C-alpha cells in the first residue's frame, strides 16, 4: 500500500448486496491496519432506486465521500449505474462491472449501454458475475462477492487476498460462509 489513499465507489440498485460488499472491503482494509471510512445509503433509495456507496482507505481518511473524479475503482453491480458513474470518474478510474441490467421504463437498452461504456477511455472489466453465480452456485446473491474475488485476482484493489478472506470470515454469518468463500474463490479459477 502506497501513501496515497484508495477510493472506491460501489453502486447498483437496491437489494444487490452492495452494503455487504462495502462492509467486506472496509473490514479487509481494517484487517490490514489501515484507516478506513465508508458511506452508504439505506431506505427510500433502496427501493429499486440507484444506490451509490463510497469507501476510502489509507493512512488517514477524513471525509467518507470520494471527491468527483477521484475514484480509483468503481464497482458497479448494474450496467446503467456504471454508465451513470462515468460522468463523475477521472481518467485513471478503473471500472469493474457486473454484466447485468435492471431495466425500467425509459431506460437504455443493454446494447446501447454497452456501446456507450465501450466509448469510454477508462480501463473496464465487464464480468457476467450474476450469470456465473447463478450457473455455478445457484445463487445470484453472491455476485458481489464474486466481483470482489475478481478484483482481488486482478489486483484492482491494493489489499491482500488473505485479508479479504479474513474479512469474509469476520463478517459473514456462519451458515452463509462457505457459499461466500466459494463465490470469492470462483473468480480466481477463471
Amino acid at each position, binding site marked *: 500500500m502506497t501513501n496515497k489513499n484508495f477510493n472506491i465507489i460501489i453502486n447498483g440498485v437496491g437489494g444487490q448486496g452492495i452494503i455487504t460488499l462495502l*462492509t467486506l472491503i472496509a473490514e479487509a482494509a*481494517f484487517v490490514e491496519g489501515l484507516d*478506513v471510512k465508508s458511506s452508504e445509503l*439505506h*431506505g427510500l*433509495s433502496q*427501493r429499486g432506486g440507484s444506490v451509490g456507496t463510497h469507501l476510502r482507505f489509507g493512512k488517514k481518511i477524513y471525509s467518507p465521500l470520494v*471527491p468527483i473524479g477521484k475514484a480509483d475503482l468503481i464497482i458497479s453491480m448494474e450496467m446503467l449505474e456504471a454508465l451513470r458513474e462515468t460522468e463523475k470518474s477521472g481518467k485513471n478510474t478503473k471500472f469493474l462491472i457486473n454484466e447485468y441490467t435492471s431495466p425500467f421504463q425509459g*431506460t437504455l437498452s443493454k446494447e446501447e449501454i454497452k456501446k456507450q461504456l465501450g466509448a469510454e477511455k477508462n480501463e473496464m472489466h465487464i464480468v457476467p458475475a450474476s450469470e456465473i453465480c447463478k450457473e455455478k452456485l445457484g445463487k445470484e446473491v453472491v455476485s458481489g462477492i464474486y466481483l470482489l474475488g475478481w478484483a482481488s485476482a486482478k489486483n484492482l484493489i491494493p489489499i491482500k487476498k488473505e485479508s479479504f478472506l479474513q474479512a469474509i470470515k469476520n463478517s459473514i454469518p456462519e451458515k452463509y460462509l462457505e457459499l461466500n468463500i466459494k463465490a470469492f474463490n470462483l473468480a480466481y479459477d477463471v
Partner: protein
Amino acid sequence: MKKVLLGNDAVVQGALEAGVDFVSGYPGCPSAEIGDNLGKIAKEKGIYAEWSTNEKTGLEAAIGASFSGLKSLVNMKSFGINVCADSLLPLAYTGTKAPMVIFVGDDPSCHSSAQSEQDSRGYAYLFQIPVLDPSDPQECLDFTKLGFEISEKFNIPVILRSTTRVAHQRMPVEFAEVKNKTKKIGEFIKNPRQFSTMPPRTMEMKKELLEKLEKIRDFAEKNKINKIIGKKNNKFGIIASGISYLHVLDALETMGLDIPVLKLGFFYPLPEKLISSFIKGKKKILVAEEMNPYLEKEITRLAKDSKVEIHGKDLLPEVGELNADKIVFALSKILKIKTKLLKIENFKLKIPRRTARLCEGCPYWYIFPTLKRMAPDAIFTGDIGCNMIAGFSPHNMQDTLFSMGASIGIAHGVSKSTKQKTVAMMGDGTFFHSGIAGLINAVYNKSSPLMVILDNRITAMTGHQANPGMGKTLIKEETEELEIEGIARSCGVKHIKVLDPINIKEFEETIREFLNKEEISLIVCKRICALLAKRQKADRHDQ
C-alpha cells in the same frame, strides 16, 4: 478494542457503555438501526426496548422511565422531533431525573426522506436544551456517552443530532466491552413540584432552565469536543461542525493548506468565548455547516464588533448536503486560489433517472392500478411509506404528499371544500402512528372521503419494523393484535370492507359502491409485503 462500526451502531455501543436501561422511539431513516439493534440485544443486556407507536408516545415513555430513575435513549428520524415537540418543551422545563439522550437523524439531500430537508438543529433555540453534533462514528459513541453525562449532571435531556453521512458512515471505532446486566427496576418517587408543569411553577421552571443553561454554557466552553486544530496564527480561519468538519479537513489536505479550524461538537449552547477568541485577529472566517445558516448567524453576531469578514452561505449551498469539493470551491474563492474543479452541475444528465419502485410481488401492484381505473377523476391524497411510490411512474396518482397521517387529514379538507371524490391512501404503520386522529376528525365533522388502508402487515419502508397490527413487539414478545377495521368501526366509520386486493372484482365493486356514499368509507387492503413473505418462508425453511 477497535472494530469497524456504523455510526448508528456506535450510538448503540455508546448507550450500552453508558448503562442505558430504557429504549423507546420510532423507526425512520437514518435512525432505525438504533432501535432495531438495541431490540436484538435488549434481553441479554438487561434493557427494556420498544418501538413506540409514534415519536410522541416514545418520548413520553422515556419521560416516565427517567422520572422512575432509568437511563433512557429515545431514537427517531428528523421528522420525529416535530411529532414529540409538544412534550419535549415541558420536559425542558421539568428536567430529567435519570439521564436521557434523544437521537435525531437528519437527512440532508433527502436521500431517504420525502417531506422536507429539515435541519433539526433549529429546535435547540425552541427547547433550549443541549444539542451535540457528531462528525463520525467514533464521535457517535463518545458523544452518546457525553450526552448521558451532561444529562446526568444538569438534569436536562440532551439531543444527539446526527445526519445520514454520519449515521451511515463506517470507520474503526475504539470501544469497551459491556457486560450483561439484569434489568433495573426503578422507583417513581413523587415530586409534583418537579414533574408537573402548572403556573406559577411553569414560569419558575423556565427561569431554572435558563440558569441551568448558563452552567451548561460554562461546561461547553471547557469541553474538549469543541477544539481548535491546525496552525495557530493565521488571518483566516474555518469554523465547522458535523460532517462538514471532515469535508473541511479533506479539502485542506487536497489543497495543501494549513489553516486553523475550530470544530464545534456542541451546537447548543455554543462556546461563545472560545468562538470569540478564535475570531480575534482574523480577517476572514468561513463557516462550514450543512443546510440552514444557524452557526453563521450566531458567529456573525459574536463578530459584530470586529472587522472580520464572515463567509458561509454566500459560497456554500443552503440546499443539499456538502462535500469536500464544495468546500474547495469556497476556499478557492476566499483565498483567490485557482483550482481545477469538476462541477457536477455542468454535466448534461444524459442517463435516464431511476426512481424508487415497488418490489416484485408487492401487493400495491394490485391496489394502485385498480384505484386509478375505478376513480380516474378522484383526488388521491398520499401518505408516507412504500405507498408513496404511487407518485412515481407508471402510477402517477399521488396528488398530495405531506407527513405521516396527513392523507386522511387533507382528504377531509378537500372533501369538505369541493364536490370532488377524494381518496386517502395510507399504510398500516402510519394508521397506528397518526392516522387515527385524522380519521376521527373526518368522521366527527361528517366528511366523505374514501380511505384505503394498504395493510401490508408491517412497517415496510423503514426496514420491516413491527407495529401494533402484528401482534409482536420489538423484542419479539406476543402482544394484542390491533384490528384496523375494529378501530375504524369504533371511530364511527359505517362502511368498511376488508379484502385482499388480489381479488380485483371484489375490490372494484367495493370502490364503486363506496365512492357513491355520502359518508366516509374505508377499504382495508390486506396482503402481506412480498419481501416479508419471502423472509418468513426462508425462516421457516431454516428451522
